Each structure stands twice: as structure tokens, then as C-alpha cells.
């Protein structure tokens, strides 16, 4: 039976060493052992063809500095809020109709009042949107107050800023979709705020509305931006963000003193 190279597991989880007199390879006998072996060989089959386990181990079993605490989980919390939005959003899209002549509002009403669990899924998406905004700001505050944006993590911060802007653009485009009075007028006001930018503002608001007036395609334009364009960008940028976090290693909290590392002080190697 081929074996995965074992990850740095805690002692309790490591398989016990072979006792004297025991056979080299223990044969799987109980159904649970057989099932576990089957699972391992499937994973091995994939890993032999992709070498994915190296990347996964690089990401999941990386070294972290002493003293990290719960504040370091805010980034992952933001990511799970995003995943929640992505999953619930896909299911909302199965009912939603971006029809400005009244169909959009009716489809949301049907989804909320009639569809099985529709109210729950919609509420998860709606409340999750606020949760994601709160978490992203808390994560940014953590990074700021811990000074974790400093060299060499500036690019991580810059990607974070783009993620913040995209997340807020998600909020803006999503707000229109229920197409009730509040959505409609909030979007009118939001588009006109864009329009007050000098020189380019008027063109920006024409772009957002798809024309000089709030028209037939404004809603479908917002819908396409909300459910395809921005989520794709966010997913890709989260990937880049996490790559940098793993590549550079997470920063230590500011109150942890740098350790004396004699080898690093050597001038010749």
C-alpha cells in the first residue's frame, strides 16, 4: 500500500511505531480500515498525478510566529463570509429575474414567501453581506494596528485595498437587485454621487446606468457585475492575497521581540 508522506502531525495523531514481531505492513482487516485504505489510495492516485499535496502542506502546515492570537483569524473569517455569499448567491440566482418592468421584484417576493427555505437563504445572503463588510474592516484594523502592512507585506495590503473596494462595489450593485423603492432610489442617489466627480463623473454614471437615464438594461448590468464580474475578481485576488500571506509568512505581533538567530548573523555561509 503506497503511503502519503506524513504531515507534521501532533504526537497523539501519529501512528504508533511497529512492535517487535509485528508484520511489516499491517493488513487492513476491519471494514473501517479497508475504507480508510480505499480513501488513501484515491488521494494517492490524484496526488501522484498532480503533486497537489505539496502545495496543500505548504499552505496548511506553514510555520507561524510565537504569540499569534485570535485576531489573526479575522482574514479567514472574511473569506468564509465571502464563501457564504458565493454559495447562497448561486442559489438565489436560480430564482432571481433581472426584469425592471416588475419581474425582479416579483421574483424576489416569490423567493422570499413561497420557495422552500428561500427566506433563510435570502436572509443568509443579506445579513452575510453586512457581516462581510464588518469583518473586512476588522481584519484591516488588525493588520493596521499590528503594523503588519510594513515591508515586505505592502503588496498584500494593496491587494487588500482592492478587495475592500470590490467588496463595497458588491454591496452597491447588490442593493439594487430586489428592485423595491429603497433599492431604486438608493441606486439613483449612488449613481449620481459618482456623477459629481469632475470631468469623468458624468461618463462614469452613464456607464453605470448604461445610458443617460436609468433604463431597461441598468438592472441587468448591475446583476451581471454583481454575480459574475466582481465575484470572479474577488476570488482571484483572495488567491493572490493568501499566496502572499503564505509566501511571506504571517507577521509576529508587535510585542514579540525578535529572536537572536546566530546563524542569520553569520556573514559567510
Amino acid at each position, binding site marked *: 500500500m503506497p503511503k502519503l508522506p506524513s504531515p507534521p502531525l501532533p504526537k497523539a495523531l501519529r501512528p504508533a511505531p511497529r512492535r517487535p514481531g509485528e508484520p511489516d505492513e499491517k493488513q487492513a482487516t476491519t471494514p473501517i480500515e479497508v475504507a480508510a485504505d480505499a480513501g488513501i489510495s484515491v488521494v494517492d492516485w490524484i496526488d501522484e498525478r498532480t503533486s497537489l499535496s505539496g502545495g496543500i502542506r505548504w499552505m496548511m502546515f506553514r510555520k507561524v510566529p510565537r504569540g499569534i492570537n485570535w485576531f489573526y483569524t479575522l482574514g479567514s473569517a472574511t473569506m468564509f463570509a465571502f464563501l457564504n455569499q458565493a454559495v447562497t448567491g448561486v442559489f438565489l440566482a436560480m430564482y432571481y429575474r433581472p426584469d425592471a418592468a416588475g419581474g425582479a421584484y416579483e421574483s424576489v417576493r416569490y423567493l422570499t414567501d413561497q420557495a422552500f427555505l428561500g427566506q433563510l437563504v435570502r436572509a443568509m445572503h443579506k445579513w452575510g453581506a453586512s457581516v462581510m463588510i464588518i469583518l473586512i474592516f476588522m481584519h484591516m484594523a488588525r493588520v493596521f494596528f499590528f503594523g503588519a502592512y510594513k515591508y515586505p507585506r505592502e503588496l498584500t495590503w494593496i491587494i487588500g485595498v482592492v478587495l475592500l473596494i470590490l467588496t463595497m462595489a458588491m454591496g452597491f450593485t447588490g442593493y439594487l437587485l430586489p428592485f423595491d423603492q429603497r433599492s431604486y432610489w438608493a441606486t*439613483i*442617489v449612488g449613481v*449620481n454621487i459618482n*456623477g459629481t466627480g*469632475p470631468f469623468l463623473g458624468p461618463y462614469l454614471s*452613464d456607464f453605470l446606468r448604461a445610458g443617460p437615464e436609468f*433604463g*431597461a*438594461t441598468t438592472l441587468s448590468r448591475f446583476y451581471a457585475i454583481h454575480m459574475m464580474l466582481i465575484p470572479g475578481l474577488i476570488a482571484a485576488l483572495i488567491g493572490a492575497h493568501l499566496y502572499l500571506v503564505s509566501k511571506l509568512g504571517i507577521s509576529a505581533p508587535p510585542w514579540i521581540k525578535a529572536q537572536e538567530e546566530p546563524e542569520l548573523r553569520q556573514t559567510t555561509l
Partner: protein
Amino acid sequence: MADRHKEGSKSKYTLDRQMPGAFEGETVTRRRFMTGVTHGAGAVAAMAFTLPALGFAIGPLFSRLPWSWQPIGPPEDFTDTTYTTKVIQIVQGIGEAGNSIAYVRKRDPAIDTEPLDQYNHWVALSSRCMHLGCPVRFVAAAERFICPCHGGVYDFRGMVVGGPPVRPLDRFYTRYNTSTGLVELGPRYSVNSELQRFSPRDPGQPLDGIGQYLYPPRFDTASLTSR
């Protein structure tokens, strides 16, 4: 590798550089040629879908809003002492979301000091607030237009008297159609604080002083002559 940098190998002819398969007069190596062709083909393929998509997304900046003269009622409907509320259509095909409201009254020479022409025998104000676009309401008792969003207030002529709006309420051209005997409402236009006409701008864009230069007009807007 090292002899690559020798003087003699700098000749532009591949033959001089002793490349296998080189022929007389050839200056571009095959590797270089293939690299160029591949990059070029990649660029063409990428442009083939990005340029049309970009043009499609940006196209609306140049779009013209179809506008026809809409009948809004016989002249008897309108007095010069108060406004009549008329529902008008701005965008076709999206039901109520495409409608807006115009407040219309007869011109009163005593207060309407802007020059009279064939298009303003009736004063038609747009209900769109010139702060950020919420719908203003005419409060007859106060003779004021009041905005529900951020407290914008306009007087009887649509001039700003309070709150954040940056210019007077937009207006519509009006005319009398002799064949139907009805008053008709034409395209929207914007005005500055002297009630000079400008092509329609979005709310929030002032038209006094440098405002008219900071907020350029659209490339192409509804024109008065279109039927």
C-alpha cells in the same frame, strides 16, 4: 554560450552567424520569427474578444435617448397659480420604473423673468432633485418643492432656497399642438441659477461658474428636433 558575445557573431545575417539551415540574405532567425508570430497571434486572439466586449460596455456613453413630444393635457388643465402633477414617460418598456413626474403650470409674466419663446408658455419642472436625484414633492400650502432625502427646498419657480441642491430644478420644453389642441412636453433641459438653458446634466453637477466646465455635456443628447 560565451562565443555568442564575440565580435564576429554580431552580423545581422544568420548565414554569417553560422546557424544551421541558414540561407543567403536571411536576417531574422526562425526562433525569433516564431516568437514574434506566436505573440502576435496571441495578441490578435485576445483583442478579438476584449475590444468588442469593451466597446459594448462603453457604448452606452454615446447613446441617444429617444424622445417624442408627449401630450399632457389641454391648456385648461394648467393655471399660473399652482402646479398640476403629470406622470410622464422617460424610458419605454420598463413599466413604472421608466416613469417620472413633471410639475406643470402656465407661465406667469409677473414672476417668470426668463425670456419668452415658443417652448416656455408652460413651465414644466422635473421632480428630480438637483442634489442627488430623489423625487421632490410640491407642497402647495408652502409653495415650495421639498425633497425627502436630504432636505433640499426649492421655491415656486424651482430655484434653490435651502439644503444641498446645486442648481434649480431641471425643466422640460413645452409647446402647444394646434392640431390636437393639447399641451405637449418635450425633452428635459438643465438651468443655472439665472435660468439659462443647458443641455441636460445629472443631479449634483452645478452649472454656475466653473461648474459648467467641470461637468461636460453628453456626447450626444436628446435633441429638440427629434419627433
